[in-house]
């Protein structure tokens, strides 16, 4: 009798065939980030955030041409922004944290994709390649990206913390800027870094449309024009300031 009773129970405990372990489901965000296409999508989204910052930063900085009062007043407004619902500098810090997050995602994704791509071709071509479509900008994204990243650190040291040796007083944006840019090597660093940024934007400002899947033959030609226009505006606007300071036009 006992044997008859135990047989079905044994079957329940030990299946006759090996059964694969139930796959552990990873959280959505981990699963999503695991894909290279999703990483590129995130790079496009964070790229747009960074482009928005770069554009607003340039527009703000062009107030240097309106004089010290306008620029310093604008700098003060950035801290007051959002008052009274946000206490002083709180909205600014929220934006800064968002920006740091966007930078982090953009850089970490790029680094991981670069590693993936290096591994995908362990044996290189032995004869020289003849590229038909890849341009200078698209092939130097990693270099221009690193240059811009290092420049941001220098720029913070220079004008946010006043740590590069020029006369620097907190809140005196115009005077700090002029004092720093009157040093020729510093002006050259600013000009070269902004040219690198322009090259980065020339490819990134076009490539983001592909990564986001924004492709429509009605507007595809405009994507390249947008990238050229955006890069040109940023480079001209940002380069003009150190150029005009170092040549003595603005002082």
């Amino acid at each position, binding site marked *: 009798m006992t044997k008859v009773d135990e047989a079905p129970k044994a079957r329940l405990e030990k299946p006759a065939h090996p059964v694969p372990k139930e796959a552990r489901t990873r959280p959505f965000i981990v699963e999503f980030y695991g894909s290279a296409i*999703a990483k590129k999508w995130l790079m496009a989204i964070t790229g747009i955030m960074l482009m928005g910052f770069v554009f607003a930063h340039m527009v703000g900085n062009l107030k240097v041409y309106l004089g010290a009062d306008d620029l310093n007043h604008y700098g003060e407004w950035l801290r007051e922004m959002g008052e009274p619902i946000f206490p002083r500098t709180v909205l600014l810090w929220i934006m800064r944290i968002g920006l740091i997050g966007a930078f982090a995602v953009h850089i970490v994704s790029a680094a991981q994709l670069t590693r993936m*791509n290096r591994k995908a071709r362990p044996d290189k071509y032995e*004869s020289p390649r003849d590229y038909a*479509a890849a*341009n200078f900008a698209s092939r130097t994204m990693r270099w221009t990206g690193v240059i811009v990243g290092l420049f941001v650190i220098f720029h913070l040291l220079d004008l946010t913390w006043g740590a590069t040796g020029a006369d620097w007083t907190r809140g005196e944006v115009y005077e700090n800027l002029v004092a720093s840019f009157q040093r020729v090597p510093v002006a050259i660093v600013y000009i070269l870094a902004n040219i690198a940024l322009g090259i980065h934007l020339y490819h990134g400002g076009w490539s983001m449309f592909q990564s986001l899947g924004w492709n429509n033959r009605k507007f595809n030609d405009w994507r390249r024009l947008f990238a050229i226009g955006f890069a040109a505006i940023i480079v001209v606007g940002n380069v003009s300031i150190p150029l005009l300071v170092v040549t003595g036009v603005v002082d």
Partner: protein
Amino acid sequence: MKVTLTVWRQAGPAAQGRFETYELDEVSEDMSFLELFDVLNERLIAKGEEPVAFDHDCREGICGSCSMMIDGRPHGPELGTATCQLHMRKFADGAKITVEPWRAGAFPLVRDLVVDRSAFDRIVESGGYITAPTGSAPDGNLILIPKAVADSAMDAAACIGCGACVAACPNSAANLFTAAKVMHLNLLPQGQPERWERVTNMVDTMEQFFGSCTNHGECEAACPKEISIDFIALMNRDYIKAQFKQRRLASQRG
């Protein structure tokens, strides 16, 4: 005409490879590039040497077998042309031509110019099908398809799976191949039931083998079927949508 061929020779996957140079004269301008290799191999055999191994089959540009990196470009300098359709008249008399196999981690070298492209089969297996009732063929025009959709799906379906896109890509990415295979079905009404599964599975399989797309556009320029990178954007769009899509609502419209 006379040409000097520098060809990658490698006896097997683990063997040390090297370039060998061969002088060929009395080459006809009407020869295809593969016929040039036939002539070379005839001579090598006559001399008792090993012929150069290379993939070829239909020789009319539709099978996707031929795979040579010619002077740094997959399938050579002509746009929209597979190696088999490339003719010697496109080269100057006395030309020095360097020929190398496709190079990608997912395409292990078999011998000389032959690489194993079965990673592409893994991608297609994971989603390159539709569910269709068996039995007699349905009546024509039972499913209406807008002309623009049919044209676009056909453009994607022109992919012959040669691997030139991977060979051309600085990242060894297979996004153009996968996009063509995903989108030719995802664009059509017959492909809709598996649309989200297909793009997810095929992309995930692709990423196990190949690099990632950085939008250089080299693949499009190298493709013998001139498949547009528009399909890569459409695949990206479908992939991202598929990740957020609530699958059990997939049959609802709008």
